[in-house]
């Protein structure tokens, strides 16, 4: 960790950036020796920006998110990040709580009363297409609905940064496509700084302002694609298709 002189440019950048990761190194010690999960990764996310991180399995994407959420500390380099709420791949809703109480669980954990948490979560159910399912338990909801409740739970945590860890990977292809469209719209209405980790290149291009491509372990950013396609984006838009192909090339997938 280095202490830099607070020059003008740096201060300006600080106010702009929600996430600054510089040369972050993360290693794990396993029985087979030391595994380097992240090898000098640098990521900078502006406030309100949606950055999609794509990479093959085991490239350290989840480690990156846990650094952002403060669940892990880097072994080297610098991680500076506004408070972040995690949305996991599996919805991980609490099976004994209703959808409404699951959505408000962060508020309850912070000491709000049950009725206050419900009052805060309630209006969102209409907006998220969950109206009428407030009292349903997670077991009674479809996979897509559960992910929406899970997203709402992260949103209501009131953190400036949302860390989405392959949020739709567990859904079937049709529901996944629906949910991607839904999330794109939800994020347009409710601007947050978002880091979306995915191995679905199309999802990255559809949702991100920028796509960061990671190399296999040890993880490093090997390409940065700016997605300057206006929203709402169509899967079949030639720009989207071209950017998708470009991202796949960066990942080393043969055409």
């Amino acid at each position, binding site marked *: 960790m280095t202490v830099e002189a607070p020059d003008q440019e740096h201060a300006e950048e600080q106010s702009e950036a929600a996430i600054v990761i510089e040369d972050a190194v993360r290693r794990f010690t396993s029985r087979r020796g030391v595994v380097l999960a992240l090898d000098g990764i640098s990521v900078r996310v502006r406030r309100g920006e949606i950055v999609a991180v794509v990479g093959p399995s085991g490239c350290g994407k989840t480690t990156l998110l*846990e650094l952002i*959420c*403060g*669940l892990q500390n880097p072994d080297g380099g610098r991680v500076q990040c506004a408070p*972040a*709420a*995690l949305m*996991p791949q*599996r919805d*991980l809703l*609490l*099976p*004994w709580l209703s959808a409404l109480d699951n959505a408000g*669980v*962060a508020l*309850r*954990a*912070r000491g709000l009363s049950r009725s206050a948490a419900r009052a805060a979560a309630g209006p969102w159910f209409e907006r998220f297409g969950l109206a009428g399912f407030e009292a349903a*338990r997670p*077991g*009674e*909801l*479809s*996979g*897509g609905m559960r992910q929406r409740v899970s997203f709402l*739970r*992260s949103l209501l*945590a009131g*953190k400036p940064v949302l*860390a989405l860890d392959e949020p739709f990977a567990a*859904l*079937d292809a*049709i*529901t996944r496509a629906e949910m991607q469209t839904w999330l794109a719209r939800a994020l347009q209405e409710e601007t947050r700084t978002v880091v979306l980790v995915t191995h679905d290149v199309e999802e990255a291009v559809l949702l991100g302002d920028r796509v960061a491509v990671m190399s296999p372990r040890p993880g490093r950013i090997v390409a940065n694609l700016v997605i300057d396609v206006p929203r709402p984006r169509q899967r079949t838009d030639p720009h989207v298709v071209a950017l998708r192909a470009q991202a796949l090339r960066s990942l080393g997938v043969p055409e």
Partner: protein
Amino acid sequence: MSRMRRWTGWAGPLLVVVVLLGIWELYVDLGGADPLVLPAPHAIASALYTDRGTLWSNFLVTAQEVVLGIIVGVLIALVLSIGIHFSAMLRRGVYPLLIASQAIPIVLIAPLFLLWLGFGLLPKLAIIALVTFFPVVVTTLAALETVDPDLIKLMQTLDASRLEVFRRVELPASLPGLFTGAKLAAVFSVIAAVFAEQAGSNSGLGYLFTIADSQLLAPEAFAAVAVLSAFAIAMFALLAVAERRALPWAYQPKGDTA
């Protein structure tokens, strides 16, 4: 349709019981066993009827011991499980002792409990609690360990303190384990009550059994056993119903269809 299914659902077990009782009856009636050693079902049934007053009053004594004993056992188990779950030191230091406590032959230790705690209800509670707390600790700890570590990470990013994580995630997740343990405990507790009463008491079904047995009143002794068995089944069933009522989420079909 559902009434029909309810009937066929009961018919199977009922048939098994009737057939087993029939074989037993025939075996004794045809001279296969001395009725002083193995009374016929009809003799037991008639003892159940004639002794119903005595059986009932002694049943109430045993039932009180058992129910209070289970409650004490479950409460001790809950405290121990939480302690062991939170403290690696307790897990290493106390868990082996708990296992060791279950290797103690209750028949031998029951008289000692009487010496320490007197002749009343207290030694019975202690013995029943000693037998019942262990299965509850094992199943509750197992349930606590099934909590997804990712869920705990998620709660941490939602600013939940360790205590909040326990209260909102781990404690509810442990309840199905607690019920499983309590169901096992309900069955074991009846045996523990008999040992406790045998060691020293002047009432209860275990006491009744001991007296009848010593006077070669086999049907009367078996009648006490029949009541004990029915009581164990009833407690198990009651806990199963209570579990479904209290934890409906644990019985929902996992709706994974999108």
